[in-house]
């Protein structure tokens, strides 16, 4: 019975092919991506016809500071939120 259930559960798991040797590295968690996001935020602030909101300013400042202190993940998250807010809250997700 247990074997049958395990079999059923296994059937629902996505298909995998050959075994993977090493994990593939994701590049959107790196300090470089953080800087790339910061450039984008700065560029949008410059090009905007109106000054950014206080929230955007705070988020971008915090993001910049965190990325500079090695807290890349947190910095990236804040910069992304700042970008989303500047683009009118329209997310691609």
């Amino acid at each position, binding site marked *: *019975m*247990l074997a*049958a*259930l*395990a079999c*059923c*559960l296994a059937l*629902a*798991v*996505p*298909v*995998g*092919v*050959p*075994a*993977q*040797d*090493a*994990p*593939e*590295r*994701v*590049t*959107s*968690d*790196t300090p470089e*991506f953080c800087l*790339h*996001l910061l450039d*984008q935020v700065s560029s949008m602030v410059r090009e905007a016809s109106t000054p950014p909101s206080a929230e955007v300013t705070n988020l971008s400042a915090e993001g910049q500071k965190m990325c500079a202190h090695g807290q*890349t*993940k947190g910095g*990236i*998250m804040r910069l*992304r*939120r700042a*970008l*989303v807010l500047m*683009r009118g809250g329209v*997310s*691609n*997700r």
Partner: protein
Amino acid sequence: MFRSAGFRFAAIYAVLLAVSAAASAYYVWWATAGLLDRQVEAAIGTDWQGLAERWAERDVPGLMQTIDDRLMQNVDDDAIYLLVDSRLNRIAGNLERWPSTVQVSGPFYELQVSRAGIRSLAMVRSYDLPGGYHLLIGRDVQVRAQLRRLLTDALLWALVILLALASIGAMVVRSLFRRAIANVSVTAAAIAAGDLGQRVRLSGRGDEFDQLAEVINDMLDRIGRLMDGVRQVSNAIAHDLRTPITRARTRLEDAALHAETAADLQAAIERATQDLDGIVAVFQALLRIAEIEAGSRRAAFTRVDLAPLLADLAELYGAVAEEKDVALEIDLPGALPTFGDATLIQQAVANLLDNAVKFSPPAGTVRLSAVPAPTGPTIRVADQGPGIPAADREHATQRFFRGEAARHTPGSGLGLTLVQAVAHLHGGTLRLEENPGGGLLAVLSLPLPEEGERPNRDVTRAPLA
């Protein structure tokens, strides 16, 4: 062990419980962990539709820009994109290189990824683009995978516990079954050993086993009554036949010892033969009653008009009554249809008339009447004889029953038994009542042709006693 019904019941119980639990567990898994997987697949599919539109509008540059935008705005930080050319050179996206495990487009792949040095799990799908380009779209499913693993583990352990409980339950079921059957089995063994007084013990819960025990006990009671009836009939046969057999033997013995002439010897033999003929007649009557009660004559039933049949009987017994100085009055309708065996009905009415004439006092009156009642024809035979006391009437149709008033009248005690057997065979009734003018009133009710033609197995067997 496999031949044991208790084991089979227990096994069926355990299997049904396990299958039900497995089905429930799989449904829970499908509705939770499966739902997470399906959500990821739907998100990737939606992503692909948007990117495909960009590709169609602006080719490679447009797709690169869109991928970059989406990565920058990916607040949940779970998106994975990779656009490569025909040589698998990276053009855009957040994956360092094309995974070697992703070889064909279409199916979903689980991919081990590293995010800031931490291993994680992603679900990805590859899409082929014109010009040899390939696009990989994925989502990080590490949290979902952990949740799914927890859920799967919990369900598997729940199944293990349930299997253990099912096994214990099966043993309990088997034990209960054996205990319930043992009660019946002990009783049956005692009865087989000759103790007919044993009965199945009731638990008092009124459950199915109690109902079965009650049915078995009722059956045993009925068998007991039938056995008593058989014993009573056997005793009655022995008692009633002993006298004429002894008488015939005595006559023959007396003739053998004391007959002086051939004429004396001849006369003794003739009287003994008459006694033996009476015995044969009793046995014939018993066999006939048994045949009627067996219901085999029912196959020969037809529509019958009783009016001419009763008229013939009245004519026949009119002469007999006249010899005894008894008046026979008749009141018969023009037609009296029923469904049955004419010969048997004639025999039954003849028995009633014979009794009525036999027990009527000189100058008495016997009345034969019939009416086509709504429920079927009713035949009444009334006499002015001693009648049957109310206390004896329910026994009067038993084999060899002889009322106090009939002790000194010739007869075998089988006449009314045969009448009742005929009535039951036809789905009718025989009632014995007190005649308003004194004496006995016998009422034989038979069904209408339409009712009688319907199958009625309940009436094919009359009670033995």
